[in-house]
């Protein structure tokens, strides 16, 4: 593990998480969630968990985002808060 890289990635993922929770446009929220999962994937690669990172790269950016985008398109796009 490399501590400085770990901290930089943690700060970036906290920024992505806060933005995904606070933004009003739900499509932007979903895409920020995909960016958050990319930083998770980088953190796990840096910890040596290559299998978990591989799964996260396929699942977080691929399948989960597609499910969320379909739901957002079929319901309302704008959130009240």
């Amino acid at each position, binding site marked *: 593990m490399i501590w400085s890289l770990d901290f930089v990635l943690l700060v970036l993922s906290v920024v992505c998480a806060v933005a995904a929770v606070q933004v009003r446009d739900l499509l932007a929220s979903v895409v920020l969630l995909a960016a958050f999962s990319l930083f998770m994937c980088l953190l796990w690669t840096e910890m040596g968990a290559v299998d978990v990172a*591989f*799964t996260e790269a396929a699942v977080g950016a691929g*399948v989960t985002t*597609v*499910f969320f985008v*379909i739901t957002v398109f*079929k319901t*309302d796009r704008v959130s009240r808060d």
Partner: protein
Amino acid sequence: MTLPPEQPPDVIIKVVCRSLVPFIQLFGLYVVMHGHSSPGGGFQGGVILAASFVLLVLAEDRATLRHHIPPAALNASTSAGVLLFAGLGVVCLALGANYLDYGPLPFAEPRSIGMLVIEIGVGITVMAAMLSIFRDLLEF
């Protein structure tokens, strides 16, 4: 706001995605088969195989999935993977060992082959389950 599936898809997107899909599927099969000695396995390969069909459906229209994989085949393969996994355990039981103990399988490297079989079962189930959820959400 609804999905815009009625308008014909752009020809460049269609051609590029169609030519990318076989390579993605080949990589997914490689990940399932090569999980013994590199990062990978049934879960990852199944998700990658499902993502290739998702890309195909997003590039074309929603009848594409029904055309390439009929709904009955999708439903059947969702349970076929679980049955392959549990059936190998029953085979081990019939050969005189414990459930899911691959020792007495009649191969040169029984544990390696047994693991490969259950990785294939996991891959089939994960692919079919993801595609089934995707189809149900899309066609609602």
